[in-house]
């Protein structure tokens, strides 16, 4: 692995990872709920601002890992503390640090009991999430990966809705059951290559059979996290029961970890197996696109609707990944960011409705537009973004993915295109109902429109919807080199060069 030195000088990744954890210590001392909220907002905003230099100091000309940090950790087990970013993980780290302050803002009024514990869970989540995207040591990755389980299931199980316990347990057990196989695969990789270094695992001549087992063990873990059809059943339960901030975190960041895992482990480390399983993964992605779309169409609970639309959107992301070409991969990466922005925003929107009406039922929210015009404007933009309307962010992402899918096989697009139409159908239906409703809308005359805090929460996401939609170069620019390198690792030629002909 070649490496470029850290241009910033500070161990910035460690600071970003452990800064929130340090903020937990202060949070333990603060007595008043009010100040706790402010402190968490300050800490997460500081992390967001602190992560900006990453983008500006990032060298887009090289596919190598940057901002490297490396230290000995557990020599007896060959585990090191290695951090670094490339074009694939950079935007995901930035997305995480951007979403976190918004999560705090979105729970400002919603969370009224055990505020301290809630904020501590959020901060620990930030540590773990940034850590997952930065880790270059497989075990370090796994530690952060699993470290999310406890705070996330607490977020769902303590502050969630009526069936919160069921949802929290389902989330926990699903994820844990998937990740144990990942651990075996990581150990097996270490025994082959001699270290847990992730870049060191790429391009190593593993035997085809070994690759298949490692691919499957990793894929099951990542597929559950994405979640790919048919491993998605935990998602609607978790989304529906989680508090707003929990839903946003789940949708915006946690789901990305599955696709990130595919990009970081499956494609470059087991290229032969990737090619072998490619048709099946594409098939599952298409199934997710269609299944998510049809199921979302039938929902009357807004959160469930957005949750199932997530299944469909993430289907696009995995489709782009397993199309294995530049357009598909860049589209998938962009789609990951887009989904984080748009679906995160939609969950905040649903949370805003819930705080006012204490229901998420589509019929009972009908006709909000009359009394909440500003809110409806925001909702309209995010709904259009969700259905990939031209000019919004998702359009670019889905267009690239479909281009990549077209290059892979024409029939793929034939199956994926209805997914786009379905998205239009369920989103427009929702938008129509909330904005206008019918002739007999419930009485919403007493409702207040968005407060300043709520506008501040949604505004950054709105900016990104149009920014990515109209001028995506600043975002795709950083990916190019890394995507090229990834394709070299996982290209057909290199995958089969190491394998004897049949």
């Amino acid at each position, binding site marked *: 692995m070649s490496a470029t030195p850290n241009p910033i000088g500070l161990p910035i990744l460690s600071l970003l990872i452990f800064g929130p954890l340090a903020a937990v210590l202060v949070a333990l001392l603060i007595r008043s709920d009010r100040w706790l909220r402010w402190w968490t907002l300050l800490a997460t905003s500081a992390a967001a601002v602190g992560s900006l230099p990453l983008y500006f100091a990032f060298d887009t000309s090289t596919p190598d890992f940057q901002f490297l940090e490396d230290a*000995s*950790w*557990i*020599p*007896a*087990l060959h585990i090191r503390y290695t951090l670094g970013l490339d074009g694939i993980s950079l935007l995901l780290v930035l997305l995480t640090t951007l979403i976190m302050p918004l999560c705090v803002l979105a729970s400002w009024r919603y969370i009224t009991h055990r505020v301290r*514990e809630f904020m501590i869970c959020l901060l620990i989540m930030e540590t773990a999430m940034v850590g997952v995207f930065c880790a270059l040591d497989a*075990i370090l990755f*796994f*530690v952060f990966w*699993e*470290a999310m*389980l*406890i705070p996330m299931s*607490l977020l769902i*199980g*303590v502050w969630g809705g009526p069936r*919160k*316990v069921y949802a*929290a*347990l389902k989330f*926990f*057990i699903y994820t*844990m*059951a998937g990740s*144990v*196989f990942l*651990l*075996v695969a990581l*150990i*097996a990789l*270490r*025994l082959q290559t001699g270290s847990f270094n992730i870049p060191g695992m790429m391009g190593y001549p593993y035997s085809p059979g070994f690759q298949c087992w490692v691919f499957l063990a990793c894929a099951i873990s990542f597929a559950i996290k994405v979640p790919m059809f048919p491993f998605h059943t935990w998602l609607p339960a978790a989304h529906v029961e989680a508090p707003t901030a929990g839903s946003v975190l789940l949708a915006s960041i946690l789901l990305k970890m599955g696709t990130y895992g595919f990009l970081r482990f499956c494609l470059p480390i087991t290229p032969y197996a990737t090619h072998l399983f490619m048709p099946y993964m594409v098939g599952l992605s298409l199934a997710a696109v269609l299944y998510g779309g049809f199921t979302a169409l039938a929902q009357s609970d807004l959160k469930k609707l957005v949750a199932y639309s997530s299944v469909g959107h993430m289907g696009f992301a995995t489709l782009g990944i397993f199309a294995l070409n530049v357009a598909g991969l860049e589209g998938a990466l962009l789609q990951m960011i887009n989904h984080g922005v748009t679906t995160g925003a939609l969950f905040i929107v649903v949370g805003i409705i819930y705080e006012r009406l204490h229901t998420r039922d589509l019929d009972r929210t009908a006709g909000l537009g009359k009394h909440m015009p500003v809110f409806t404007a925001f909702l309209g933009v995010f709904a259009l973004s969700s259905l990939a309307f031209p000019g919004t962010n998702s359009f670019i992402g889905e267009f690239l993915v479909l281009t990549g899918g077209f290059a892979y096989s024409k029939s793929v697009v034939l199956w994926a295109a209805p997914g786009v139409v379905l998205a239009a159908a369920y989103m427009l239906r929702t938008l129509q109902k909330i904005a206008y409703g019918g002739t007999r809308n419930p009485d919403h005359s007493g409702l207040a429109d968005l407060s300043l805090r709520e506008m501040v929460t949604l505004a950054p996401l709105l900016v990104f919807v149009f920014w990515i939609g109209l001028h995506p170069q600043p975002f795709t620019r950083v990916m190019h080199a890394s995507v090229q390198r990834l394709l070299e690792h996982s290209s057909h030629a290199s995958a089969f060069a190491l394998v004897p002909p049949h």
Partner: protein
Amino acid sequence: MIADFFMAFLPELVLLTGALVLFVVCLGEGRERLARFVALGTALLAGAGALLTLTQKHTLFDGVYAVDSFSQLLKLVVASGFACVLLLDDRLTDIREDVRPEYFLFLTLSVCGLAMLVSAIELITLVVALELSSFPLYLLVPMRREHQGQRAQMESAIKYVMFGVAANGIMLFGMSYLFGLTGSTSLPVLLVKLQPILHTPLAIAALALTFCGLFYKLAVFPFHFWTPDVYQSASNAVTGLIASVPKIGAVAVLIRLVSLAAPESQTLALLVTVLAVASMFYGNLIALQQKDFKRLLGFSSIAHAGYALIGFVALDQAGYTAALYYIIGYLFMVLACFAVICRVSTDGANLAIEDLAGLHRRAPLLAITLVTGVFALAGLPPFVGFTGKLSLLSAALSRGHLALVVIAVINTAIAAYYYLSVVREAFFRDAGDRPAIALGWPTRVLCLALIASIVALGVAPARLFDLISASLGCVSLPF
């Protein structure tokens, strides 16, 4: 020379003196407080003694007793476990009032036996030390106060004794073969003389039978039958002791004995594999159904014995290091759970899992201790249970035991469910009319110390790994 001897024997001397003092204390009436202080002092001094002698290297009593960094490290762990057990229950409500001072006496004697066990390098010494550690436990189990119509502690004590004696009998039987084959009972001599005949069925049978006594202590399937009943029927603090410290001794001796079979003995590796798999599945599957928290921990201890055995399948230093590291971590994890049990159950009665409801409101510190201990047992990072499992799986996989490793991780996933059901009660359920729990400062210190050790051993285990592998170097193993 004499000074050297006393120096090397310091931890055991402290424990023996403590036991003698406690014996005198027990002669009077109402000496409970005094006995507690003497026992606690003994534990701390013994720990300090072990720390002082960490670098000693001696062979005492004509070569039957080794004092090396391996034994001293384990004595340090045993002593700290002893101190934790003493702090577990500060009122002993469930021990009959008239025998409370004796409780401390037997506790100290049992720990003394364990401290000697980890140093024994001769079969007879080993048996004597094993019995010294076991017999006080047989007495501690029925010390629980009798409730109306409930004498389960008597039944389980009988069960414990019968199984213990039977397992020891089998162990002695195996040892007799080892002696017959080699003409010696000294482990270093056995190590040399057994090598040429290691592949013979008789040698393998002798070793396998010898392991039985330790499998009983570890509660490995099929020597586990006493576990759930004893866990359920003994008082909470006594269960805390039985569940934790003796496992250290068992693993230590197992390392010394299994190394007789190393480097090559596929038959024994297979035997250990089968036992490990059976223990994991049996313990985890039955634990899923448990309603009583202690009984649940009992079945989970069977599963954890299975995990620890994974380290022995590898039959190499990495495996032994992993097993030892895991069992040291297990000591702290399980003690964290018992600390919570002892505090939540104010009258000393058994604790159903529902009784933990709303613990995060009733006693936040206990809730955090519980969640740390339980998630560590489940094998989640950053706790010691994860690092331990990682090292065990690495060791086994590096020797090609893929099937065993896959079975182990499947079991980890199964186990997650019942550990989670404990957390569910503590965090996701309302307390109802259950009262808040006030904690004294010794409890707070104990809880914080246990949490700190579980996290520290999990996050920064490099030092302990170095210490363990260095100390394994001084056990005369043929690496």
